């Protein structure tokens, strides 16, 4: 008994030394090899008297387990140590740049259209579209703007034929006409899209974007119009305190007509929307003219409602501080990168319009 205890103590001390795998394996052989000390001790079992044998066997087994455990632990320790020292040599310069990601972007006009759609969706509008190429009837005549009406001068029209019958739509209002002709009231739609006028300077571009709004039902009045636009403007600019002014104006297809100004001030040469003492015109609107309703087979004695038209690009310029309208359409890589939006930044009601 004392022999094996001595072996145990001796080897436990040995194994506490700083050893490498090889030395541990040697110890393992010295103990458990064919002629190992523990192996040999087991061989003596048979020669022991019965009463001693049981006790000795039990002691020997527990010493064996203890030593084996110690050896395994030691081997694992060494392995981990070796791996760790190997890893020390694998150190990378983690400040090197990551693999490149091409960051795509959504154009501000698209982003603003999504924002607008999201806001009007909340108050029950659906989105309609119409063709970019229109005929003179849908673009003007059906909208109570007959030929020889001076209001036509306000639209510098691109024509596709010499008879001036086919043109590029000068506003999104023809979508009103198409929508009403193709359906039955009530109507509650917005129609964003491209519009065209032969005009080009810093604030005009031959192509731009508008969103048309139309709400026709039995009792929709100017109060609803005011409420709707008030709601839209506040939601869009994401400010609660914003001054709005409705003032009388004239469009052939609405009566009464109004233009809407919002308050702003100039701070360091930049326009700040809100409560300033200056006014900025942002949209035109009014009650749909009975003549227009008649033209699309809606009974103006039964149905009435409002329409509005807003310049999308201009809204985007105001909200995101973009100065030059023409830059929207010039595909300058730097501009697109600077003013574009992350494709995952989808405007929505529940998540908020902008990040």
């Amino acid at each position, binding site marked *: 008994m004392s022999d094996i205890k001595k072996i145990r103590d001796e080897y436990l001390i040995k194994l506490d030394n700083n050893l490498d795998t090889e030395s541990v394996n040697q110890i393992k052989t010295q103990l458990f090899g064919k002629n190992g000390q523990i192996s040999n001790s087991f061989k003596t079992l048979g020669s022991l008297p019965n009463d001693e044998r049981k006790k000795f066997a039990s002691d020997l087994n527990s010493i064996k387990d203890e030593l084996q455990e110690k050896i395994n632990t030691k081997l694992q320790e060494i392995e981990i140590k070796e791996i760790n020292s190997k890893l020390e040599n694998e150190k990378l310069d983690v400040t090197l740049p990551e693999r490149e990601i091409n960051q795509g972007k959504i154009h501000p006009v698209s982003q603003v259209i999504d924002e607008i759609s999201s806001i009007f969706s909340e108050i029950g509008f659906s989105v309609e579209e119409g*063709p970019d190429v229109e005929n003179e009837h849908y673009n003007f005549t059906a909208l109570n703007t007959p030929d020889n009406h001076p209001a036509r001068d306000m639209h510098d029209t691109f024509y596709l034929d010499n008879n001036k019958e086919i043109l590029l739509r000068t506003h999104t209002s023809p979508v009103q006409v198409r929508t009403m002709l193709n359906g039955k009231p009530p109507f509650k739609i917005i129609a964003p899209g491209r519009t065209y006028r032969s005009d080009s300077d810093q604030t005009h571009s031959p192509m731009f974007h508008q969103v048309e709004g139309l709400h026709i039902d039995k009792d929709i009045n100017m109060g609803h119009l005011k409420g709707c636009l008030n709601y839209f403007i506040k939601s869009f600019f994401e400010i609660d305190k914003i001054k709005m002014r409705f003032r009388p104006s004239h469009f052939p297809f609405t009566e009464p007509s109004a233009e809407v100004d919002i308050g702003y001030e100039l701070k360091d040469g930049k326009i700040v929307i809100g409560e300033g003492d200056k006014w900025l015109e942002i949209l035109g609107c009014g009650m749909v003219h009975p003549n227009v309703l008649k033209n699309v087979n809606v009974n103006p004695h039964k149905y009435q409602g409002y329409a509005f038209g807003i310049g999308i690009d201009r809204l985007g310029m105001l909200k995101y501080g973009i100065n030059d309208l023409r830059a929207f359409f010039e595909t300058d890589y730097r501009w697109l990168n600077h003013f574009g939006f992350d494709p995952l930044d989808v405007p929505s009601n529940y998540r908020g319009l902008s990040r």
Partner: protein
Amino acid sequence: MKFTLSWLKEHLETKHKDSQIINKLTGVGLEVESFENISSDLDNFKVAKIINAEQHPNADRLRVCDVDIGQQNIVKVVCGAPNAKKGLLTVYAGPGSVIPKNNMKLTVSKIRGVTSYGMLCSESELKLSDESEGITELKPNKYSDKIGKNFFNNNTEKVVDLSITPNRPDCLGVRGIARDLAAAGAGKLKSISHKNIKKNGSQNIKVSITKDKNQGCTIFGSCLIKGVTNKESPKWLKEKMESLGQKPISAIVDITNYVMLDLNRPLHAYDADKIDKEIIVRNSKKGETFEALDNKEYKLEDGMCVISDQSGVLGLGGVIGGTRSGTEFKTKNILLESAYFIPRSIRKTSKLLNIDTDAKFRFERGIDPHSIEIGLLKASQLIEEICGGKISKFDIQKMKQYKNSEIKFNISLFEKITGFKVKENEIIKILNDLGFKVSKKKSVLNLKIPSWRPDISQPIDIVEEVVRIKGYENIETIEPEKNRLKDTLNKQQKLFHFLQRSVASKGYLETVTWSFTDSRINNFFKENLKEIKIVNPISSDLDVLRNSIFSNLAFYLKKNLDRGFKDISLFEIGPIFKNNQPGEQLTVIGAIKSGKISRLNWNEKDRPVDIFDVKKDLIQTLIEAGYDKRNFFIRDKSPTYYHPGKSGSVYLDKDDIDPVAYFGELHPNIVKKLDIKTEGIVCFEIYLEYLKDNKIKLKDQKSNFEYSDYQKSERDFAFIVDKNYKAQDLIEIISSIDKNLIRSIKIFDIYEGENIPDGKKSIALNVTIQSSEKTLEENDLEKINKLIISTVETKSGAKIRS
């Protein structure tokens, strides 16, 4: 429409402050464009004399002038005007002045090396006239003792500029504006007082209006004023004209202009002695010509309304007069015209001849047909006062009687439209103030519309009158209801938004370009579509509607490459046009990619972009949009603007007739012609209209979840096939051998060259085999192996590579 506040107050008795009047104007729908005190800015403009003018040492067309600006101050001014000569009296603007024409602020500046202190101004720069050839020339007799004095009279007139909407011709006269203000409670409209004038004798130049078809003139009123002395206008009248930026011409012309601006009643004065016997108002004949007061010769078409005499055309009625019968300072006898011309006729004529005048602007919007006499009265009275002469009786020829139209207005309509109530007697008062004659039957008003309001014809117009005078601020704000009639977006619109963001998420910058393009570039891409010309393009390089999205993308890609960018990914989603009728357009995504992948990258080797980059983006976009890749089919047909060997089309299903998308390398010839310089240029396009409605509901899109835990095996094969043999076909053959066992097929090598016969290639693929019922034994695998080899060899003519 410009006017001064003092002029307004000739018609409006008011205690309102200027700022209140300005706010009221905007409030009733007469939008104030600007309101400024004109004197302060104009004090900087001095009468000056050029005392010496020398050639500029560095510029042929410039002169360096010594200018006497009074009080013994001589300044050097560089001037480019040909008439800048020694001794000339002119108008000098010092540094700090703001030039009225362009609002440019002057500073001391060096012009071609010579310092110039201020500027000598042309009449156009001072907004006195359109004269821009040379600097203003002042008459010595009047100005030689005024050197150094303010050129503009030092009045403190405040000028208002209104933007008048086309429906309100009545507000193109100061009185109309005053009437609106009075109705809105900003004062009281003064009544017009007339002195009696003595009328001597009859108007003995015969006037006739012919009964031509579509005769544009329906009333022609006139009177003769004999023995006048035309001269410069008196101070008050000159100042009135100048304060509005109009150049005084002569008393007679200024008076007619004054009456026009005051009452919105255009008039015309003829030198009666230049009229050949009689006035005939008739339609023009094609080819007739006349010289107009703008010194241009006009050639007329058939059917334009002209005022003529026996010798020919004197002027275009309501548009512009002619030089032949124009008044001069020596004019002794004048014929004054006050007529009514039909708006449609005026508009047609002026559009055809491209003439825009103050008279035309007013007549085309509609002049009060009842203002003929008041116009003659007011003007002839002023002429008599200023120029003397004897006024004849008025001669008024009428083809038509104009009666005030009447409408019935049910008061309840007001609240129905505006959402708020105004008391009946208040409505009546407003309408009375605006000039309506009102009588009442129960809740219905009988309204006689004032003759100066051609815009009013139905009850809704009355609602607008009352609500704008009452003020839009009285309209209540009704919170919007949140009920929805139908889905916000339909399927196609959802797809649009989804694809847009899907493509962007693959590293492409979205752009928005014109719907029109340069026909020369469009020709590369239009295929067999019709070219759609714009009749009046904004510029000659934007002359057609785009038949393809790539003309603009390629153009702008080049621009960005020229800016020094190399690796560019752009896309646009928008319309292309098949023909010039409404609706003949398609919505397309076009994407273009240039340069290299991994350029200047420390851990990856760079390579030019290739078609499998765009194919990956394209296929992944379609998958994300909900289409099943397993059904996709690729063909090598594509439009001619792609590289014929490196392009293809994608079908959602093998049996589909139309491809939904194309991808490939841009044709090298086009790249060359457009002078695009880059290592690689590839593109893809998706046609939204051809994408089938993915109608499966979300709950049905997910099939039952089935999986197998039995052992998978992988086997590699290499087949030698014809060089043109398609990998897609090989995959199709193998996968259809046993859809249950063959789980995936991956192509891991394509090889041509050594050990492969000419005209052949080797395709190496890895096939994953797994059963859902059991672990496959070696002989099962061997069986399927053999089956794969034999089927491929029979169906494709391929040989297994040993």
